[in-house]
């Protein structure tokens, strides 16, 4: 591959308002069409939402610290669990991945920018409005949405407050934002790859994001349809989900989970891409089974459309349907297993070092696998009748989403931060962040398996006395995990403000086009397309 020297001031305008160097102040961020600026905005937004959603988790854990109702009342508790879920899914994890895609995909495929820069600006700037609406609804009379992030009808239709309308509106905006982001990613990858960057030479992060983007445009419109049906059922007299008018409340769950299960993979496939980038770098050895990784990711994506009803085993499906969804769900373990085995094989006989990104990636592999194995247990229908809607499920999806998705995002941040800022982060602070997070996150989520098996239902503000000791322990873990993330902010601020100068390659074993650019990279990544050998 050629080494590229780029000077951001060396060429003319692309667009009427597209400057080579950023204008100063607020306008730079409001009007920016630059993939790096927008990526930064997405990441900062996700971080903010992570702390807002986290604050809600702290309220939940504080209330559950002891049995009885102490801090909040039951209806507010429900609003906290609901909005915590919505914020973390749509406000933290998804925008963080979109931010990473914005920053990295053009650099990884050798493009100057994203393909549709102005749409890129829009897709970010409607997000703050969506979440302002959602958060503001908490302050209206009767409070915000309290029907869970899954908003099952008829709790969300006939029996909900008027904040439902705001909820629907904000979900619509989030959906539009995600779809625009996904279209941008697909067009960039299809049309702006550098010469020689064939499909099977693309970095896995690009591959997984491409598949994610297709999942997004396939299911976000279905979510939009679902919330619209909720809205018309509540306010305009339709009866999609009302038995009285010929509808069926279980239909809601089918449509929702038809969106919801692929959504789960939307939140984990990019994480696979990140880990597949980090592990080879620090093992100083190429990724094992690149092609099988691509095929495994694609088959996970395809299977995700066939397993939605495993969220609904207790709704009363006939045996044949339960068996079908059980078998399909179990089948997902195969490609997921292949991925984990490939990562381990990549490490095998490598020469590993353990910088912070690698530590988070290793933690990801172990803890995500634990979440995957509990997922396999949940797939077994007869056992699921006992697990369903208990803390066992809460433990399961927090293992895949917190120690899975969020750990991968943090790993990515540490991994590419020197590239983005041009400075090395503080390694020892980063190690502190890692170890504090690792210990506290397991204190937080591991005991949830036990309380769930012992019979504690999820989404309850108060519980029977036998769960008291464990819940107190879990809450302490929760507060510790929340505090640990402040170290992360400290590391970020320190790194952005200065630090040891990063080289272009940053990491000894790093490979890929983004490491050939300067650190920090020029404003327009590859103004001359590199040639990939």
């Amino acid at each position, binding site marked *: 591959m050629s080494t590229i020297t780029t000077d951001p001031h060396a*060429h*003319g305008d*692309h667009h009427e308002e597209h400057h080579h160097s950023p204008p100063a102040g607020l306008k730079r961020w409001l009007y920016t069409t630059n993939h790096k600026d927008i990526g930064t905005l997405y990441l900062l937004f996700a971080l903010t939402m992570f702390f807002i959603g986290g604050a809600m988790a702290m309220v939940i854990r504080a209330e559950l610290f002891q049995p009885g109702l102490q801090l909040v009342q039951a209806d507010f508790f429900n609003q906290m669990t609901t909005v915590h879920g919505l914020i973390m899914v749509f406000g933290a994890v998804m925008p963080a991945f979109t931010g990473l895609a914005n920053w990295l995909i053009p650099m990884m495929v050798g493009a*100057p920018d994203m*393909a*549709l820069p102005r749409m890129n600006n829009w897709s970010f700037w409607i997000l703050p409005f969506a979440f302002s609406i959602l958060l503001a609804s908490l302050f209206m009379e009767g409070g915000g949405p309290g029907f869970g992030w899954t908003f099952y009808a008829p709790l969300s239709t006939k029996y909900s407050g008027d904040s439902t309308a705001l909820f629907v509106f904000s979900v619509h905006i989030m959906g539009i934002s995600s*779809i625009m982001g*996904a*279209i941008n990613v*697909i*067009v960039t990858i*299809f*049309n*702006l790859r550098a010469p020689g960057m064939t499909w099977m030479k693309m970095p896995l992060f690009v591959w997984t994001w491409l598949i994610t983007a297709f999942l997004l*445009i*396939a*299911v*976000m*419109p*279905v*979510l*939009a*349809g*679902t919330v619209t*049906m909720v809205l018309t059922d509540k306010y305009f*007299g339709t009866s*999609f989900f009302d*038995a*009285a*008018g*010929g509808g*069926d409340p*279980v*239909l809601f769950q*089918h*449509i929702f989970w*038809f*969106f919801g299960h692929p959504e789960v993979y939307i939140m984990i496939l990019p994480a696979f891409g990140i880990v597949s980038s980090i592990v080879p770098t620090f093992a100083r050895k190429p990724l094992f089974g690149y092609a099988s990784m691509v095929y495994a990711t694609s088959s996970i994506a395809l299977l995700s459309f066939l397993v939605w009803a495993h969220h609904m085993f207790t709704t*009363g*499906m*006939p045996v*044949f*349907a339960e068996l079908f969804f059980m078998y399909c769900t179990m089948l997902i373990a195969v490609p997921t297993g292949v991925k984990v085995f490939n990562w381990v094989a990549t490490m095998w006989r490598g020469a590993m070092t353990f910088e912070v990104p690698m530590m988070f990636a290793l933690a990801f592999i172990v803890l995500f696998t634990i979440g995957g194995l509990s997922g396999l247990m949940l797939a077994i229908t007869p056992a699921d009748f006992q697990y369903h809607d208990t803390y066992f499920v809460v433990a399961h999806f927090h293992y895949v989403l917190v120690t899975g998705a969020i750990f991968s995002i943090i790993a990515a941040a540490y991994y590419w931060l020197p590239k983005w800022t041009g400075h090395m982060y503080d390694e020892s602070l980063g190690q502190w962040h890692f170890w504090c997070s690792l210990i506290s996150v397991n204190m937080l989520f591991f005991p949830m398996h036990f309380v769930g098996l012992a019979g504690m239902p999820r989404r309850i503000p108060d519980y029977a006395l036998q769960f008291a000791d464990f819940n107190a322990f879990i809450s302490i873990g929760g507060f510790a995990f929340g505090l640990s993330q402040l170290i992360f902010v400290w590391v970020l601020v320190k790194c952005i403000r200065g630090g040891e100068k990063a080289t272009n390659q940053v990491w000894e074993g790093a490979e890929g086009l983004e490491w050939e650019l300067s650190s920090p990279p020029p404003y*327009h990544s590859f*103004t*001359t*397309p590199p040639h990939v050998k």
Partner: protein
Amino acid sequence: MADSQQHIAQPNHKPLIKKLLVITLAMFGFGYALVPLYDVFCDLTGINGKTSSMAATADKAVVDLKREITVEFLARPNADMPWLFKPQTQKIKVHPGEIKLVYYEAENITAATMTGQAVPSVAPGQAALYLNKMECFCFNQQVLTAGQKLLMPLQFYVDPALPEQFSTITLSYTLYDMTKHSQPETVAALIPTGGNHE
């Protein structure tokens, strides 16, 4: 050079963007299409235990004297529906193919004319496919004036093709208040239905 590349590349995006937008719109439509698809799927497999909303004919009614099926009748007015509503017969034993007629009683104990709609559901769900109703009050809405009692017929037979594992079929009706959704002019009330409560 970068300029020219961008200017050439830019228009090329349009066909792809168009395709992606078509997929997006199609998937939005698909979300809605899931509603009728679900109904069709339920009619084929009986996964939600709903019986057909159309009158059946008796052409499959060849009586199978060797088998006996217990059919249970349940009736429940929904919580916000003040009518009395119950089956005259709790349960009967029938041979598959045998045509039976049973009655349900409904009484509007309020002081206003009201409209009710009974919604059927069958357990086990798959048996719904084999419960053929030739006449059912659930096909229509019922309008009862204050204090009016009504005997409502249900004529049905069990399809002889009912799989062996089913020996009991429970047919449940939930009665809903549809007064607001049907003819608002008939809601002549001596006592307001609580409309000014909020």
